[in-house]
């Protein structure tokens, strides 16, 4: 049994149907990427899974049906979602942002975890008591990822971390996530336009087109696939 099993997911906005029966799985500790062009439904997939928009179909997490549950219950169950655009709570300090990430926890390890993330991401440590809105885009992305990990999730949904970031910064973000995933054994489902980078990081991938999975395979297979190279990796390069 996979950690996450999404089957026949349908969702949309109002009368517009964006997802037309999407299915995917993520195993415990696995890194999986969903590739797709603008408008393919990548963000919608994650929003539907998190209960931010109404959806039908099935989403089993650890064997339990989760679709339609309130988003705060999903977090408590072990699914953390880093939204597109990072979702920084700009009026709160960096430390408070991290503390918010631990809202569903009731153990006494929260302060320890905050210290830990401030060491893992030294930039956050330096700006611990500053308003989070003052940080650069890359720093805010690091904060959003650290905040998600504050809930001690088993699965992190990561929505286009490269958005608005310089290539070098994007690279750094991916490297850090890679380290974290290996260290904590957390599974990650990431949606990305930057296929080249994402496929180096992930073990498996899905290609999403018009709300459907059209291709799936290991990252190596996808990197080798000519049609994917043409569509998402910048021609035959």
């Amino acid at each position: 049994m996979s950690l996450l099993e999404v089957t026949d997911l349908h969702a949309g906005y109002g009368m517009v149907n964006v997802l037309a029966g999407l299915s995917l799985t993520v195993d415990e500790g696995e890194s999986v990427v969903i590739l797709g062009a603008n408008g393919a439904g990548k963000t919608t997939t994650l929003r539907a899974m998190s209960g931010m928009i109404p959806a039908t179909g099935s989403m089993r997490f650890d064997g339990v049906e989760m679709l339609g549950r309130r988003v705060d219950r999903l977090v408590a169950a072990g699914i953390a979602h880093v939204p597109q655009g990072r979702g920084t709570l700009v009026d709160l300090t960096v430390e408070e942002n991290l503390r918010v990430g631990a809202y569903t926890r009731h153990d006494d390890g929260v302060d320890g975890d905050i210290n830990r993330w401030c060491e893992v991401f030294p930039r956050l440590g330096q700006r611990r008591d500053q308003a989070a809105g003052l940080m650069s885009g890359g720093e805010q992305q690091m904060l959003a990822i650290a905040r998600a990990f504050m809930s001690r999730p088993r699965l992190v949904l990561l929505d286009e971390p490269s958005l608005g970031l310089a290539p070098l910064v994007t690279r750094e973000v991916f490297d850090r996530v890679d380290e974290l995933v290996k260290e904590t054994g957390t599974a990650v489902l990431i949606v990305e336009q930057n296929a080249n980078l994402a496929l180096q990081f992930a073990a498996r991938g899905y290609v999403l087109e018009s709300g459907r999975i059209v291709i799936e395979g290991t990252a190596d297979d996808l990197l080798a696939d000519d049609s994917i190279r043409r569509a998402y990796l910048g021609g035959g390069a």
Partner: protein
Amino acid sequence: MIGFQLTEFAQYCLIGLGNGAIYAMVGLGLVVIFRSTGLLNFSQGEIAMFSTFLVWQLHEVGLPVWLAMLGGMVLGFGFGAMLYRVAVQPAGDPHTNPLAVVIITIGLFLGVNSLAQLIWGTGDKDLEPLFGRDGFIVAGVSVDWQKIGTLAVLAFEVALLYLIFNKTKIGLAMRAVASGPESSALAGIPVTQIILIGWGVAASLGALAGTFAAPSRGLNSSLMLQVLVLSLAAITLGGFDSLVGAVVGGLIVGLATDVIPKYVGFLDKVPLAPAFAIILIVLLVKPEGLFGSKRVTRV
């Protein structure tokens, strides 16, 4: 203009501070809602008035004033949360549709006012002052215990709110929800519950404010009409999201409206003028207020 007398001036100031404490209390309710939802609640004054009637009702059935006040705060909490649930929440996300929510709070202003008239009529009710009607005279200035008590309760109230907002998990959640409801939800905060609590707390604070306002102003459905305007001036001056700002702003507005007209003859006819002048000047010179936070964001 007559000669300036220090005792007289001190007496006016004391009256101003006593009234200012009430503007501050209502202002604190506005700040609580602003800090948990990011919105201005125009019905805050009327919710306070309604909750004060609940206090009066409990006193009427035999509870001592202080117990009636606590009871009214508890019932007020439920009333405020219920109003949010029934009238405000159906309008959807206040961040995508702020105008709808603001209009609804104006509708609530009228609705709650009418409801109070329907239940309790239009005549004045008498609510006993919590700290009695006694006082003392110091250096020719008469000081009543009720004013001292009001200021003391205000100090206690703001300290408690400060601790809640800055040192508790629920306070952090309220500030998070005000800053970004969707991110807060994704971080696991039950957003609707937090906003309900914010409205409940604000209504409780309204019951507290009303309990201090009613004895001198007379308890009727227009108890808070003027107070709300002055409280809005107070938090505009102090900063919409600042607890300390509401207190300092309230006291300054109290002083301005009770002292200045005594020395500037024509203002007697337009008692709210200093409050409007304050709002106007602050918005022109320092829009975030004395203690409010300037919102700075890098994208």
